[in-house]
């Protein structure tokens, strides 16, 4: 920074500018550290900034993700061509089995309805569903979130459950005007109260950024059988009870883990579910700032 001006302002400013130049990089790194601190302490301001920026970028991501999805579809198509025959045989068998189940389900449904009418049972309010496209999974190795194309305009609220066809995917942690962020069940910050299907054992499903979240807070002597199905328990009011989550497996380290029913690496469309009274802001109050 050479200057021919010899005013007093320059005489004072020049050394300062020189110092800034000299310590440019350390200053920037300090600024980054300061930002991390601020983000840690004042998470609401950061959260708002995130919402704004994600809202602004999501249309771009929406456009960009379409060719990627087409390429992936094409690859999937050719992969499926290879084992078309085996797949067909498997599906036939499955179809036969499911038909039997259908009969059983219809019979039980009728029985259930007649029993409910006898008891004058008040059913839960019907859930409304909004379907959105997944346009970004930007977290890399550190964060398990996805960005979806539905937001406040479609009635999405914080804390609502997000499902794919097969099972629970996660919950809404941030809502913009036309975009929202979903914290997946595998994320480090995800904690979901669950119940095991046959033993009715309660537990907490805790994500640890791996593909298969941990099953924690089990009583020490409890027997956890691999293959058992896991559902949300509805405790804490975060989720309604009975949403399918996954299947228990024994991890490599001997700890019980859960294989999510939804294939979280191939999410294309997800359903945001509004169950009316449960979830939402009240649940958020018990678990504030899950994402900093």
């Amino acid at each position, binding site marked *: 920074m050479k200057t021919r001006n010899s005013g007093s302002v320059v005489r004072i400013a020049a050394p300062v500018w020189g110092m800034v130049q000299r310590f440019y990089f350390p200053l920037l790194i300090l600024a*980054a550290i300061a*930002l*991390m601190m601020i983000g840690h302490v004042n998470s609401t301001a950061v959260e708002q900034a995130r919402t704004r*920026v*994600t809202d602004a970028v999501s249309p771009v991501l929406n456009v960009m993700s379409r060719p990627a999805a087409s390429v992936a579809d094409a690859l999937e198509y050719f992969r499926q061509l290879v084992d078309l025959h085996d797949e067909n045989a498997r599906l036939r068998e499955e179809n036969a089995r499911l038909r039997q189940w259908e009969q059983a389900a219809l019979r039980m449904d009728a029985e259930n309805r007649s029993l409910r009418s006898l008891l004058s049972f008040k059913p839960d309010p019907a859930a409304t569903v909004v379907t959105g496209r997944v346009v*970004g999974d*930007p977290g890399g*190795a550190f*964060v398990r979130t996805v960005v979806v194309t539905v937001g406040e305009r479609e009635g999405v609220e914080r804390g609502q459950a997000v499902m794919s066809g097969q099972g629970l995917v996660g919950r809404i942690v941030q809502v913009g005007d036309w975009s929202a962020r979903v914290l997946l069940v595998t994320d480090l910050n995800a904690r979901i109260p669950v119940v095991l299907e046959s033993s009715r054992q309660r537990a907490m499903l805790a994500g640890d950024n791996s593909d298969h979240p941990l099953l924690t807070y089990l009583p020490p002597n409890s027997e956890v059988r691999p293959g058992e199905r896991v559902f949300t328990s509805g405790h804490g009011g975060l989720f309604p009870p009975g949403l399918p989550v996954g299947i228990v497996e024994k991890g490599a380290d001997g700890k019980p883990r859960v294989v999510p029913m939804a294939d979280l690496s191939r999410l294309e469309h997800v359903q945001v579910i509004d169950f009316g009274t449960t979830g939402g802001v009240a649940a958020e109050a018990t678990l504030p700032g899950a994402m900093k």
Partner: protein
Amino acid sequence: MAGGLFHQLDQTGRNLLPLGVTLLAMLVGMVPLPLPGYAMVTVPLMLMCLFYWVIHRPDLLRPLVVFAIGLLQDLIGGTPIGMTSMVLILAYWLLITQRRFFLGRSFVMLWIGFALVAVGAAAVQWAVFALMTATMLDGRPVLVQALLGVALFPLMAWLLQRLHRAYLS
């Protein structure tokens, strides 16, 4: 006069190429690819762009701009805010001081250099994240991410070189 203005606009547009490419790399890295395990390991495309442009045209990709790009990535990605900025600035600092060493060296040297930077950046990221969240995260996905970046570096470097020669020579 009009020609002069047009020339200036043209030059400005060309000078924005490094920034544009780096931003595009950031967005491409966020697009979901339905490949198993892809969400866990995102190729550090942005770091490749940074590496290339800081060595060849640091005047067109200023530290403050890099800082802002890192911030944008953190805001969209949900990572602790400032983390990516810090890693990118550290990489920038290292590269700008070692720039003379890299210029005019063979491609293999550049590749080794990038490998060091990528692994270093992964280590810093991992350490910062561990500090921020007070958890020892499994380090393997981070390392795999860095190695994937190293494996794909020649392709990206070739692409960037084509762009560089086409618009900025």
